[in-house]
């Protein structure tokens, strides 16, 4: 029984310029203690997917059109606001991309850090403070005792992200969703943050969903990977399958784009074209306009995820039907 079971999650944004199909029929599962990576370009729907699960999408203009997201018996998309509030921060925690803006500048670090414990009635103020201190220490903040009473603007970006992690994990949640946690940070700090998340995960047994556009980040970190494009999952499998046996043309193109793996002196490989306009619905596969293997079939029929191996699925018609190995 998976910890999190998402089925046909669909979120559209109804704007003045049209309906943006940000997430279009996404389904996946998360097991206890597993690390799942969701990889894709900006606009592929990876963040919106997870925010939809927690009800953090502004509802106008967004709307969860259909789908279910079962977490330990509760359908997150169809439960009451109160039930959702009880799960948020307590059993499913989320950290966001920009640590500079994700902390409240008007409240002390301590107040924000222990807030999840107080909201969910897990500790009284005194005990919460002690736990907060311990958490800050655990995430590597030097001199935690004196810094805990400080304000966010007194912390650097990397430190703020550590605080975010501490804040998210202080209730020992079952799932941690990390939405591009390192994108806004220096390269040197990025590795540290990832190490920290990994360490905490191992200690607490938390399942982690890591959202990123950076293939390098997921390769050393995740058990399984979902590759998203145009609001849909186009390939899903174990890390080694995704990297060593890529099936979907988009995934292959991504692999080919990694600069470090390309021959020196030759022109860098780029995927031609631009990401799709999410307000216009395409008849067939959304990657077809940029795919070098696209055929008439691809532009007329929308592909579905199908197995191509053990726990390895792909949504490419040509791969499924003709066993295309580009």
């Amino acid at each position, binding site marked *: 029984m998976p910890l999190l079971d998402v089925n046909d999650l669909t979120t559209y944004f109804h704007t003045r310029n049209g309906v943006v199909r940000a997430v279009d029929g996404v389904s996946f599962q998360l097991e206890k203690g597993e690390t799942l990576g969701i990889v894709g370009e900006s606009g592929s729907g990876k963040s919106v997917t997870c925010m939809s699960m927690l009800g*953090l999408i502004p509802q106008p203009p967004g709307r969860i059109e259909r789908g279910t997201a079962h977490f330990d018996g509760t359908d997150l998309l169809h439960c009451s606001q109160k039930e959702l509030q009880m799960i948020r921060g307590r059993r499913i925690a989320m950290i966001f991309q920009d640590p500079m803006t*994700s902390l*409240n500048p*008007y409240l002390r670090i301590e107040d924000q850090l222990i807030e999840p414990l107080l*909201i969910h009635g897990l500790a009284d103020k005194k005990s919460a403070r002690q736990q907060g201190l311990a958490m800050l220490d655990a995430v590597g903040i030097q001199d935690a005792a004196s810094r805990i009473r400080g304000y966010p603007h007194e912390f650097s970006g990397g430190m703020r992200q550590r605080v975010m992690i501490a804040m998210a994990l202080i209730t020992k949640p079952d799932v941690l969703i990390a939405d591009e946690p390192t994108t806004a940070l220096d390269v040197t700090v990025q590795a540290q943050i990832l190490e920290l998340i990994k360490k905490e995960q191992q200690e607490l047994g938390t399942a982690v969903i890591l959202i990123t556009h950076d293939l390098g980040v997921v390769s050393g970190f995740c058990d399984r990977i979902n590759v998203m494009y145009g609001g849909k999952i186009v390939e899903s499998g174990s890390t080694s399958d995704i990297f060593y046996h890529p099936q979907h043309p988009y995934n292959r193109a991504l692999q080919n784009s990694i600069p470090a793996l390309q021959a020196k002196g030759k022109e860098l490989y780029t995927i031609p074209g631009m990401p799709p306009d999410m307000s216009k619905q395409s008849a067939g596969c959304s990657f077809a306009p940029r795919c070098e293997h696209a055929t008439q079939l691809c532009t007329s029929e929308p592909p579905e995820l199908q197995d191509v191996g053990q726990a390895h699925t792909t949504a490419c018609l040509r791969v499924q039907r003709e066993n295309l190995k580009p």
Partner: protein
Amino acid sequence: MLKFILRRILETIPVLLCVAAMTFFMCRLAPGGPFDEDKQVTAEVRELLNKQFNLDQPLHKQFIQYITHLPTLQSFKYPNRTVGEIISQKFPVSAKLGFFAMCIALGLGILFGVIASLRPNTYVDYIPSSLAMIGICLPTFVMGPLLMLVFSLQLGWFPATGWGGFDGDLFFSSDMVLPSVTLGFFYAAYISRLTRGGMLDILTQDYIRTAKAKGASGLRVILKHSLRGGLLPVISFMGPAIAGLIAGSFVIETIFNIPGLGQDFVKSAFNRDYTLVLGVVMFYATLIILLNLIVDILQVTLNPKLKFD
């Protein structure tokens, strides 16, 4: 913080002196003295009066005298009453008016501003915002008489004039309603707009999303996470608001016939009652500067990004 206060006080002294000088010389440079218009006064009596009030001495000497003896100076037009007496009698009335008006302004303003910010661009927003627009555009001296017309003369709910009930002794009486509402409505409108803007600004920030992700309820998000930042514009506005309330009180007291300091100020300006004018101006100026100091301290206390510098 102490250094800050001291520095402010030091700054204040030259400002107050300037204010005093400007006021004094403006009054005196206008041709004519305070007793010129009294037709019953003969020339000799006038000379005597001028002497009694030291009006025959050189200007700068008069100025120094005024500054040093201000509260004990006698008013020209109210015989046997000193400036200090008059102010201490009349100011409490104006202060109460201002206090009630401010309560209305803050109470209604913040409440409606917060409500409007929660559902922007819906009816919950449009109605308070439109009311606020009206409040800002309808001058007090139009609104006052209009309210009097409707609520006093036509409906008879509140008395049109007077203050403090029949004997003027009550702490709160029905004749205080219309003046306070009239004076406070403009500020309520302005504050509600500021609150709405400030809250909207905050509510779209990432850290509100973080708070929700932690499981905070709607009320908690508003009270604990948003208000402190959202109300900052309102607190900054308090300075000019106080100055505005004082200015507004002149008109309100005139319209509703309230025996406060504002009414006296206008009259004394017309009557060339120099001592009273100077007294009132200095009093108000000091009061405002003091209140502004408090507002500034409040601002620094509530906003961790600011320091006393």
